[in-house]
């Protein structure tokens, strides 16, 4: 089951502190960038729930990120409603609903089929938003007013302020992490991890496998929706590329790079990949070549990702202590 080791706890605290105090010392470019990184972190954690804990390899996860972003635009631009207390739950609900429908259709399949079908459904939504003039076509939609947290007409928290948005994102990231950590220790969480390890055994034990998978898929979809809400608010922009399979592939790279099945690894993956891209992209036009080589190197030499390396390093340091006992559900 999911447990946080001492070494990962240290990383987590460092990560939390780093993100928490950065705006007090940082400049506006990196505040913007870190907000994006934290949103991607939530997005990657939600995919980790599927890949790392449930054993569902979805290559269409960006679909839920994207429909949520389009929901934000629908409220802000089409309805001229700015209250985030309304928009945020609605965006999550739309993402969750899409995950329910796509999940229901996809979970009947397994292996290569599941990968390709999730990819194809995401492309279907991508094509939908791209074709419709109403949704801004290939260019997407730019907007000026950002959602605000307000009660009645009183604005509590204006998200057009970069620092406000930063701390909202930070809170959401912390909340998402705690939610997932608690969820994974609950009976449901143990059950989905059991599905990943041995589906047949879980079925024999009387679990409804498809039900468990679908639940996990919908929860992950909602969380991806939370990340989509932030990205749409941060950029005041939405575009079909938010749903593209490149976006799905990128977030998958983050999960693996960080180390799947560890949650905090996804945050590290989002941080590392985005900062790497930000720094090498200005050095060399063909930086994606390095990125591609990097992805392949991770697959070949570091399949357990950063968090896996941290764990094994810390285990080597504490040779005396016996390795943690893995207990199945």
């Amino acid at each position: 089951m999911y447990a946080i080791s001492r070494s990962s706890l240290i990383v987590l605290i460092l990560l939390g502190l780093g993100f928490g105090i950065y705006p007090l010392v940082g400049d506006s470019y990196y505040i913007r960038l870190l907000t994006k990184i934290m949103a991607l972190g939530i997005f990657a954690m939600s995919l980790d729930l599927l890949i790392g804990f449930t054993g569902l390899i979805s290559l269409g996860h960006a679909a839920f990120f994207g429909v949520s972003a389009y929901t934000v635009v629908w409220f802000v631009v089409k309805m001229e409603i700015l209250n985030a207390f309304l928009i945020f739950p609605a965006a999550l609900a739309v993402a969750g609903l899409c995950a329910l429908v796509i999940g229901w259709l996809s979970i009947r399949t397994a292996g290569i089929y599941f990968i390709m079908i999730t990819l194809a459904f995401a492309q279907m939504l991508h094509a939908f938003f791209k074709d419709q003039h109403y949704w801004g076509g290939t260019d997407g939609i730019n907007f000026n007013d950002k959602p605000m947290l307000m009660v009645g007409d009183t604005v509590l928290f204006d998200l057009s302020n970069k620092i406000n948005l930063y701390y909202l994102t930070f809170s959401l990231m912390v909340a998402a992490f705690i939610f997932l950590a608690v969820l994974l220790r609950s009976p449901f969480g143990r059950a989905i991890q059991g599905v990943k390890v041995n589906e047949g055994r879980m079925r024999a034990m009387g679990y409804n496998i498809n039900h468990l998978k679908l639940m996990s898929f919908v929860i992950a979809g909602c969380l991806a929706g939370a990340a989509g809400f932030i990205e749409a608010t941060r950029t005041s922009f939405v575009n079909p590329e938010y749903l593209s399979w490149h976006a799905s592939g990128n977030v998958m790279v983050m999960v693996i790079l960080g180390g799947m099945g560890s949650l905090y690894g996804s945050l590290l993956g989002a941080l590392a990949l985005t900062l790497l891209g930000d720094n090498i992209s200005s050095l060399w036009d063909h930086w994606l070549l390095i990125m591609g080589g990097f992805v392949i190197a991770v697959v070949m030499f570091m399949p357990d990702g950063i968090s896996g390396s941290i764990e094994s390093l810390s285990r080597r340091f504490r040779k005396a202590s016996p390795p943690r006992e893995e207990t199945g559900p």
Partner: protein
Amino acid sequence: MTTLISSLSRRRLLLGTAAGAAAISTFTPTRFAIGQTAKLKVGLMLPYSGTYASLGNNITDAFKLRLAEVGGKLGGREVEFVQLDDESAPPKAKDNAARLLTKDKVDVLVGTVHSGVAMGMAAVAREENTLMVCPNAGAGALTGKNCSPNVFRTSFTNWQPGYACGPMLIKDGKKTVVTMTWNYPAGTEQIDGFKQSFTAAGGTVIKEILLDFPKVEFQAYLTEIAALKPDAVFVFFSGDGAVKFIKDYAGAGLKAKIPLYGTGFLTDGVLQAVGNDAEGIKTALHYVPDLDNAVNKKFVAAFKAATKREADVFAVQGYDTCTLLSVGLDAVKGDAKAGRTLYSTMQNTIVDSPRGRFTISAAHNPIQDFYVRQVKGGKDVLLGLAVKALADPATGCNMG
């Protein structure tokens, strides 16, 4: 993690001094010990790859050509360029623009070709309150619904060339038309402008065909056009898409049967590549290379000498962007943050352009003449005036 923090704080230290200098209220360009004025940073965010790469290059080269003509300085300051390839990719627009404005700290932002990218750039420029000049993208909202005191355009709104084309088809006796373009603002807005003047004069659009940008597989649609048999076909395509369309149109045997019209982008910069297939195509645009005025003659020759390429409308727009910046910045001694003084100088300028003189509207878009052109002998030839001093309606703009 620790290396990250130390590298960030080091960077912050460097930026901190720059920010401190900018905060001084009465502007004196930062002086170094030897007494030189700090360079003016101009961010060129343009397409240097993809379908629009050649447009980005022409704009850049013409801008630099003009800069050399005015002595290599803007507002008395040496110019340092920060060039960034926008890849004509709207999703990257805002992060790229933010990078130029908040990380590279450019004083002036110039760009771009693609309308969707330009809209993202303008939003960030507004947020960061930095002067932006758009040398091509024609998105109506840029100087319409989303117009802004710090955003100028030296090119056109998509509506303008579209609108200028309507009367041309009516005059040629074309009453029914099929339109075709890419499904993105540059395309749909030009077609909308065309429809407005064309239908008002009694024409009918029997079918509007839209396809994904930048797809160039036209076959299924050409089949449909052949079945619909309109009087004429009106399109917006540009760059390599235009080359492919003109060739396919001729290849499908339609060239001799249904005449092809378009906004001038259809033939600009593509004639060499399409050869004979473009003969006779009529277009309207705010520039023709054979315009008879002194500025144009000098420009065409200088551009050819500097780049070995023929001048086109995009080069003209890049050239004029530099002219406009030079006039504005000279008036405020190079203080790109001067705000209202700078913006009103720029708006009240009469730009002496190779396309002929033009003025700037209250919404910061050119009020300019449009010409009827036809491809003859592999060249766009001036046939006459399409519309004089055409101003965009700037719907939704509350400025001025």
